[in-house]
């Protein structure tokens, strides 16, 4: 009993956290500032649990408890003042964020097809509502609808795939069922990968991403692009690691095509965007292409590289979207690239964090993005995907351009055309979260061994 309580402590704390927040809202005269504080406390507990190194927990569960704890904590900190000033802060927002994190944790650590589906759906259902949390904003509602309808479709595809795998193998355990092999299992795995590819916004099914990220409030977009992507990528890595050689032979060429197309679509699509949030959305599409490439090489060190890259990506995307949120005026988000002109001199700290995150997204040293790309391409080359890796490097070079475009807008123009010129103050929680993200991006870039060592320790010296 106690062992089970220890094992499921992160899940329990996230689930209870959501309940406590909603119940606190039922009491009379609950101060509105209580909700983010409660959410922060309950979001921090899984991280502490994973730092304590519990016995019997799986490596991936431990890693993701820590990663999702950081992501949720940063999201809550970035959202707190942002939402309060724009009048959409409430108990439901924080409760749903916690429950969404619970779904992501279940998804990332799932051994079982049913748990994978339940986790994915719990995470997504909460996110659909959170994306539309700014009720007065028609863009947010549109984004939620654009996320929800294809999301429901992709879930149906995933469930159908899981059903086929079960029909072909007679097992719901992911490892056992995929090891069984056979054409039906391969077909099921293909459908499941399509469903997961939608959530990861891999190329032919990525079209929802820019609209949703643009419509969602900036800190929520950060949560969407980091937490949900990281957890779904864990599921992708798991499925790819367990796929039978026969299924690999059948599906890997398609996956290679998808990965290449995703890198190209993301990086080229971002070139002519005028909206910063859309640029960030396309950039996150491109990053997922690299993750898909690492997933193909998952048994040749690609898994560890992808886990490192996901952590780095979480830090830099939280930094970028968080900075966009903190630099925004009272109405709407600061979205136009031209609205960022000269901000680097007016708000050096927030603009600096944004610049560091963008340089990391572009993969320039000395940031975490460079190390992550280096590891991922190294793993792909070691696994023998030379053509794909070369193509990826070309697209990554293209990707430097749009990141530098925003950085240039921040620093290269002397005239301050930013409107509104003075955004709302960042607030202690948001400022701290942004600072930690930017510092984390630099620290992971300079001392990658700290995280790589932890990953290697968790996954048995990989």
């Amino acid at each position, binding site marked *: 009993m106690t062992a089970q309580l220890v094992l499921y402590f992160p899940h329990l704390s996230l689930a209870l956290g959501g*309940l406590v927040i*909603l*119940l606190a*809202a*039922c009491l009379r005269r609950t101060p509105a500032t209580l909700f983010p504080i409660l959410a922060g406390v309950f979001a921090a507990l899984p991280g502490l649990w994973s730092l304590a190194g519990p016995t019997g927990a799986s490596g991936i569960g431990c890693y993701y408890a820590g990663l999702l704890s950081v992501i949720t904590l940063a999201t809550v900190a970035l959202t707190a003042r942002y939402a309060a000033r724009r009048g959409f802060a409430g108990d439901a927002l924080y409760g749903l964020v916690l429950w969404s994190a619970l779904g992501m944790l279940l998804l990332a650590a799932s051994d079982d097809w049913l748990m994978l589906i339940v986790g994915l759906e719990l995470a997504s259902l909460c996110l659909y509502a959170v994306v539309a949390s700014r009720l007065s904003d028609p863009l947010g509602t549109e984004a939620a609808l654009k996320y929800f309808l294809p999301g429901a479709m992709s879930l149906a595809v995933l469930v159908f795939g899981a059903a086929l795998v079960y029909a072909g193998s007679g097992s719901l355990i992911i490892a056992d069922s995929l090891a069984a092999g056979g054409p039906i299992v391969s077909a099921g795995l293909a459908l499941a990968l399509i469903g997961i590819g939608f959530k990861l916004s891999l190329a032919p099914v990525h079209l929802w991403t820019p609209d949703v990220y643009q419509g969602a409030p900036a800190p929520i977009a950060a949560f969407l692009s980091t937490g949900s992507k990281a957890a779904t990528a864990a599921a992708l890595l798991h499925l790819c690691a367990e796929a039978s050689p026969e299924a690999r032979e059948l599906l890997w060429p398609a996956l290679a095509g998808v990965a290449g197309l995703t890198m190209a679509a993301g990086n080229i699509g971002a070139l002519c965007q005028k909206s910063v949030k859309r640029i960030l959305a396309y950039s996150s599409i491109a990053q997922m292409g690299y993750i898909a490439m690492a997933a193909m090489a998952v048994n040749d060190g690609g898994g560890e590289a992808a886990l490192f890259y996901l952590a780095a990506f979480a830090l830099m995307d939280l930094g970028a979207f968080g900075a966009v949120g903190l630099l925004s005026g009272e109405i709407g988000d600061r979205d136009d690239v031209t609205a960022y002109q000269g901000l680097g001199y007016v708000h050096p700290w927030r603009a600096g964090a944004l610049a560091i995150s963008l340089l990391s997204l572009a993969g320039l040293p000395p940031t975490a993005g460079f190390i992550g790309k280096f590891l991922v391409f190294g793993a792909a080359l070691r696994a023998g995907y030379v053509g794909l890796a070369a193509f990826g490097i070309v697209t990554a070079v293209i990707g430097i351009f749009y990141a530098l475009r925003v950085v240039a807008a921040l620093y290269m123009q002397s005239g301050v055309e930013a409107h509104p010129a003075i955004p709302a103050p960042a607030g202690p929680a948001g400022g701290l979260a942004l600072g930690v993200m930017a510092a984390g991006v630099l620290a992971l870039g300079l001392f990658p061994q700290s995280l790589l060592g932890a990953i290697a320790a968790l996954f048995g010296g990989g």
Partner: protein
Amino acid sequence: MPPTAEFTPLLAPFSPWEPGALPLVVFGAIVLVVMAVILFLSGFLVRRRPTPSKQQPYECGIRPTGPARFRYPVPFFLMAVFFLLFDVETAYIISYAVAWPELGLPGYLRLAVFVIVLGLGLVYAWRKGGLDWDEEEGL
């Protein structure tokens, strides 16, 4: 011992082919061709003589009034969602009750957690005004 009667299907197989993908392909091709022909002919043969009454949206012969896009009160929708939630809860409780002798105390405790969490959900919906039949405000 009388020989057991072999299973004989009532009808001969509908398709002259072995069951396979071919009938489906033929059927799909026919559907596509018919659709293409209908769409092409209706665009090609039609002569358009628009009049104001033809341009009106078709409302079963009634003259349409007001705009089509108006905010629609949805209290019934909320009630339907709540009903669905608690209906599913009933299904779980009944299936638990059937298995009561096997499950014993551990099963009781597990279901108690489930019911309590759902009860908290009901309290939340109540406090937030989700159960008020207010067509103007809603939840």
